[in-house]
Every structure is written in structure tokens, then in C-alpha cells.
């Protein structure tokens, strides 16, 4: 069940909120845990094993954290206060074992597909594995206290707004609010505003632009012209951004409706001047996770230049693999590593000094890097790149091309593309923040909501409402 579906919006959400608001705090947490499991159940088509898997994750990690605490206490009693800051053997063993369990399952489900067919990835496992391991490591590092109530931990891990597509919330960010939260009308008002904005980005922009990318698949890469290839990858870049950004905004909005505050996941990444900056503004909570739990523990930039580049390589290969079990994601990670390394070696100073240059550089690199991300088949990737850069190889570039294709598709998608480009600039957010308490803004948001619902309503399979072939 995605947020941008009628089932979620008109069935799950109102019923959930109705009960949720009536319950006292303890009841709220229990209901949030159970409700999220129901939400998850819909997402996995009630595959009972996957439901067991997520509940097991809550229970085992809850026990692991308690176990670490127990070892720590015993250690302190035996050895006295001087070892208080150090981790005991028991803690290390428990951490290692539980990390092996969590990452083992993630690896199994992600990469089993290489060997066995018909293994479907349990939805959200990449997200909840990262979230729960961040909790474990934080407990181990004494950055957060182990949770004493399994319901609260369950509510944190499965909380439906962030369960299937992030943001990856650290436990310390919701620690307080799991214990005490005030739900105010202002908070709900803001929550609905964020949700509507996100829904608009997802349904009105991402879904429409996604159609162009879909059309290009339908034609086949062999038969598109170079301008259409660029238009297509631009549409894909905008689609993936508004899809993900919209989803994150909806999550933040839903979080506010429930009385939580989630971290921002995007900060106008397409306005970045360099790839380094881009990845500080794109999927922020993922970048943060890799920085805190991989890059810095490996030594970050404190162990010399060579080691720093090595650490970067590790982080980017893992980032690539996290996105999917396919060789092209590795290639994509490697590409990002190379770009960021070159920037670190000095290019970034140039890009930040001449901003226009930085924007042009990113305007070129963003779509190109997404092309490597989007096309999973190596042969097809090569075909697409020959279309993007026809001057590279003449021989591979045959095939019938419809010469009017660019004109045809710009007519259909031109407005959507232009709207997407404008919305990337952060203008929308600025206007929204400035006038969000005005009546006209509320009316505008209501129109966005209505339009999005209309699109969702129309999108259901009704052969009379629109013709498809």
C-alpha cells in the first residue's frame, strides 16, 4: 500500500487516525505498532513469512540491546568504575552476532535472486535493517539508551510513515516523542500541508514524467533519436527525484500527524554545484548512515589521503549495492566514487568558485549518472549511451528512428518537464514557507490535493474513462 493510493488515503489513514487520536499514549504506541504491521501486511500481500521476519527483527534486536546492557552492568560490577566506558567482550559478541543476523538477512534477500529464482525482496527490508542496526550500534556506542519497552521499539522500527521508503530515522530522534508527544492542531495542519505537497509532487509530477520514460521503453532504445534520449533521461531524473522527495515529504507530513518529527531527506539536491554536495542533499538520511557507521569507523579522512580514498570507495560501492542487486548499481557506485574523488582532488574549488560552471557540470552529470542507475541491462545501457553520445561509435547506431519523435514527446510532456525543472529550484518550498498560513495558500493546496486524488481515481482500471492503445 503506497501513500499515493486510494486505499491508503481513504481507508487506512482515516480509520487509523480516528482510533489513534482517541487512545492514551501507551495505547497510541501499541496501536501504532499494530497498525503499522497491518500497513506492512498489505504491502507484502500478507506473506506471513515476511511479517514474521519484521516482528523477529523487533524482538531479537530488542533482546540484543538488553543483552548488551546486561553485559555492561555485570562488567561494571566485576571490574569497578574504571572500565565503565569500555565495551566488554559480551557486548562485542552480541553486537557482532546481531549485526550478522540483520545484514545476513538483507544480503540473503537482496542477492539470493542471483542464484535462485522467485525470491521477492520483502518490502522495506533495506530501510528497516539500516534503521535497526543504527539503533544497535548507538546502544553499543552508548549514544542512546537501550529501550526497555518492546512496544516502543516496535513502534520505532515499523512506524508506517517511514517503513517502506525512509527517511532512515535514528532512534535518538524519536526517543523523546515515543515517551511524550503532544498532538496539536498546528502540528496536524502543517502535517497535512507537507503531505499534500508531497502527494502533489508524486502524483502530479513524478507519475506524469514517468510516462515519458515508460514510452521510451515501449519504443525501445534502438529506435529513439539522440534528442529524445536526452529528453527521456531528463524526465527520468525528474521522476526519480519527485517520486522519492514526494514520498519523503509525505512521510514527514504523516509523522507530524502522529506527533513525531522526522529528519529532512532532501534539500534541493539538483541545485548542487558538485556531486559531493549533491550527496549531502539527496537522500540525506542514507548518506548520514554511511558516514556514521561506515566511513568514520573506517577512519574517514583522519588516516591519510590514500586511506580516505579507499574509505570513499568502500562507501560508494556499498551505496551502489544497497540500491539493488545488479552489476549496474556497482558501476553506478564506482562512477560516483570517481566523480567525487576528482572533486576532492581539487575540482570542487573550481566548481564552487564559478557557480554557473558548477550548475552546468551538474546539469550534465545528474542525468548521465541516473542513466547508469536506471538501465540494468549492460547491453541496453551501451545502446542508450550510444544514443546519448552518437559521436562515440558509429557502427552501433543503426536502426529505424522516427525523426519527429522529439517534437512529438516535447509536445506531450513539455509542460510537465518545465514544471519539474521549476520545482527543482526550491522556489516552491520558499513560496510555501513564506505564505503557508495564508488562506490562498490553503486553497491552492486543496486544489493540488483534489487534482492528485482525481488522477489517482482516474488511474484505476476503468476502460471507459480513457483509452490506452
Amino acid at each position, binding site marked *: 500500500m503506497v501513500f499515493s493510493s486510494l486505499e491508503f488515503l481513504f481507508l487506512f489513514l482515516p480509520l487509523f487516525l480516528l482510533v489513534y487520536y482517541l487512545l492514551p499514549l501507551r495505547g497510541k504506541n501499541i496501536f501504532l505498532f499494530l497498525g503499522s504491521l497491518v500497513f506492512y501486511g498489505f504491502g507484502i500481500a500478507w506473506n506471513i513469512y515476511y511479517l514474521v521476519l519484521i516482528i523477529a527483527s523487533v524482538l531479537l534486536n530488542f533482546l540484543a540491546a538488553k543483552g548488551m546492557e546486561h553485559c555492561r552492568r555485570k562488567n561494571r560490577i566485576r571490574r569497578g568504575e574504571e572500565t565503565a566506558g569500555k565495551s566488554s567482550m559480551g557486548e562485542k559478541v552480541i553486537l557482532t552476532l546481531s549485526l550478522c543476523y540483520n545484514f545476513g538477512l538483507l544480503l540473503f534477500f537482496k542477492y539470493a535472486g542471483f542464484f535462485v529464482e522467485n525470491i521477492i525482496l520483502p518490502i522495506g527490508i533495506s530501510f528497516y535493517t539500516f534503521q535497526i542496526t543504527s539503533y544497535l550500534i548507538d546502544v553499543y556506542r552508548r549514544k542512546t539508551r537501550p529501550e526497555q519497552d518492546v512496544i516502543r521499539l516496535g513502534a520505532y522500527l515499523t512506524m508506517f510513515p517511514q517503513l517502506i521508503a525512509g527517511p532512515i530515522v535514528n532512534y535518538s530522534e524519536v526517543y523523546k516523542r515515543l515517551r511524550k508527544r503532544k498532538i496539536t492542531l498546528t502540528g496536524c495542519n502543517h502535517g497535512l500541508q507537507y503531505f499534500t505537497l508531497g502527494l502533489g509532487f508524486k502524483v502530479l509530477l513524478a507519475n506524469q514524467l514517468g510516462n515519458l520514460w515508460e514510452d521510451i*521503453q515501449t519504443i525501445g532504445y534502438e529506435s529513439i533519436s539522440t534528442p529524445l534520449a536526452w529528453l527521456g533521461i531528463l524526465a527520468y531524473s525528474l521522476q526519480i527525484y519527485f517520486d522519492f522527495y514526494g514520498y519523503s515529504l509525505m512521510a514527514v507530513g504523516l509523522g507530524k500527524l502522529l506527533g513525531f518529527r522526522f529528519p529532512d531527506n532532501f534539500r534541493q539536491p539538483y541545485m548542487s554545484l558538485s556531486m559531493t554536495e549533491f550527496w549531502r542533499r539527496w537522500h540525506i538520511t542514507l548518506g548520514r548512515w554511511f558516514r556514521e557507521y561506515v566511513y568514520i569507523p573506517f577512519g574517514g579522512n583522519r588516516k591519510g589521503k590514500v586511506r580516505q580514498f579507499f574509505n570513499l570507495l568502500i562507501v560508494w560501492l556499498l551505496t551502489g549495492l544497497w540500491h539493488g542487486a545488479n552489476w549496474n548499481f556497482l558501476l553506478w557506485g564506482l562512477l560516483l566514487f570517481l566523480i567525487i574523488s576528482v572533486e576532492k582532488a581539487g575540482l570542487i574549488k573550481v566548481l564552487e568558485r564559478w557557480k554557473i560552471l558548477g550548475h552546468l557540470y551538474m546539469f550534465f552529470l545528474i542525468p548521465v549518472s541516473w542513466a547508469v542507475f536506471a538501465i540494468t541491462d549492460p547491453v541496453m545501457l551501451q545502446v542508450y549511451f550510444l544514443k546519448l553520445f552518437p559521436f562515440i561509435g558509429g557502427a552501433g547506431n543503426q536502426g529505424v528512428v522516427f525523426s519527429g519523435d522529439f517534437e512529438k514527446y516535447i509536445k506531450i510532456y513539455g509542460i510537465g518537464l518545465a514544471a519539474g525543472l521549476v520545482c527543482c529550484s526550491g522556489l516552491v518550498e520558499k513560496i510555501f514557507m513564506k505564505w503557508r498560513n495564508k488562506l490562498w495558500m490553503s486553497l491552492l493546496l486543496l486544489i493540488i490535493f483534489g487534482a492528485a486524488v482525481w488522477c489517482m481515481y482516474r488511474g484505476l482500471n476503468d476502460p471507459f474513462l480513457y*483509452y490506452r492503445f
Partner: protein
Amino acid sequence: MRKYHYLVLFMIGFLVLWPFMLHKLYIEQAKNTETFVEQAQAEGAAEPESGVYDVSGGEAQEEENKEAAKEGSSGQTDAEQETEEDTDLTEETEEPEEAQEDEEAEKELEPEEFFQDTLFIGDSRTMGLAEYADIGGAVVFANTGMNIYRLYSLKNAVHDQEPYLEDILAEKQYRKIYLMLGINELGYDAEQTVKRYEEEVLKLSELQPEAKIVLEANLHVTKERSERDAIFNNENIDRINGNIRQIAEKHGFSYIDVNEIFDDETGALNPECTHDEVHVLGKYYQQWADWIRENGI
């Protein structure tokens, strides 16, 4: 109050929409269950609908029944058989002297002249033909969603062509008119559609008395798509194709079925030829055009 504008407006809007959306969800739910039941039925031995397109009469019917009794044949095998018969019959109906003369005349034409003074009418699949195949000089009238009910109201979406069918028909006398329609109509009442189709074809031949009219069978969708879709599936496509063939026989028009070059062994669109399970990839349209040329119809 100022601070909760949106909350209040949202609640009002939401409450207004709520009953409609719940109704919609309810209908969808009911439809899905129905599809499920239909599929379960289709998987059973005999289908009630298979008789509809059995025009060839006794023999085929008997054979089919035997088949069904023997191994409880699924809808797919029926469809396959039907397609094979289609092509056989096409050849037979092409026998009459007139048609033969026509064919001889065609053969004399150079390949590049083959589509001269030809008009293609169709939906998005025909649009693909116009865009990705060399059909030198042919006029094309097509649009995504084109259907028999809106032939004269929908606009042409093909590059550099007249917008309305009326003008295209008035413009000149064509030698040949190819017509591929029927898939967008699957959501309508089948009987109604067949009746309308016949009317429209007769109207076409009246407006273009000299033109040879070629009715094209609709392209199949892939097996996967067919199994998933309650409406746009191969069973329905085969049924309307059968009806189109009947119309062709009845009035002496030609009938061709391009599915023979794009079908896989199950009688569905070969998944390798398509991405969206409905349209062939751009590079395959030329094969379609060449196939028409080679068959000389």
C-alpha cells in the same frame, strides 16, 4: 483560526470525497473478485464463450469439443487453434477471381510503390507503424485510443497528416484501406461494437468505392498481460478478431492477421518483441510492413 485554514478546508474536502472514493474502492474490489471467478472458469474445461467466434461451424466445433474433453484445454490453446484457422480461412476467402486479379496487379508494383495511395486507419499500434516503419507515401489516420465509436470525432495524431478522417477520405480516392481497430472497444458491449464496426466499414467502402478494404486482426497482448487483465486479454482479442473475419467474409473484404509473425508458441504476443506487453518495440514495425508487402494484400 488562521493557523488551521488548511486543516479545516482539508477536512471538508476529504469528507466530501470520502463516500465517492469508498464507492470506487468497493467497485474495484468487486471487479477484482469477478476477474478471479472468470479466470477460474476459463481454466475449467469448456468455456461458454468459445462458441461465439466459431463461425466455421460443425467441424471446428466438434474438434474443439474433442480437444476440450481430452485434456481440458485452456483458453490459450483454443485461442491458438483459432488463430491457425484464421490464417487458413483467410487464404481461402482470398480465392475469388476479383481478389486474385487484384493480387496480380499488386505483384507488378515495385516495393516502394506498394503503399502508394494507401490509407491506414488504426490505434496506437498503427501509429507505431507510421512512425517506425517505411510505408512510403501511405496516408495514416491513427491516434492512441482511436476506436470505432469515435472515428470521425477523434483527431489524427500522426505527424504531417490531415487532422480528421472526413477530410482524409474526401481528399482523394485510395487504392487500398487498411483498418486495425477493436482493442480499445473491448470495454464496450461486444455485440454493439461488432454492429458498429460493420456499419463503419460499409460506410468506408461507400465513401471510397474503388478502394480495396483490408481488415486487420488486432495484435495480441503478451500471455502475462492477458492473464492479468479482465478486459484487454487475448481471449477477447481473438473473439473480436473472429467477428472482424466474419464481417470480411460476409462483405467480401480482405482479412489479414499479423499475429503470425509476433506470436510466441502460446499464441500470445512474444514478450521479447515488447516492453509494455501491448505494443511491439520500434524496431519491429518494419517487419510488420514487410510482412504486408510480402503477402501482397
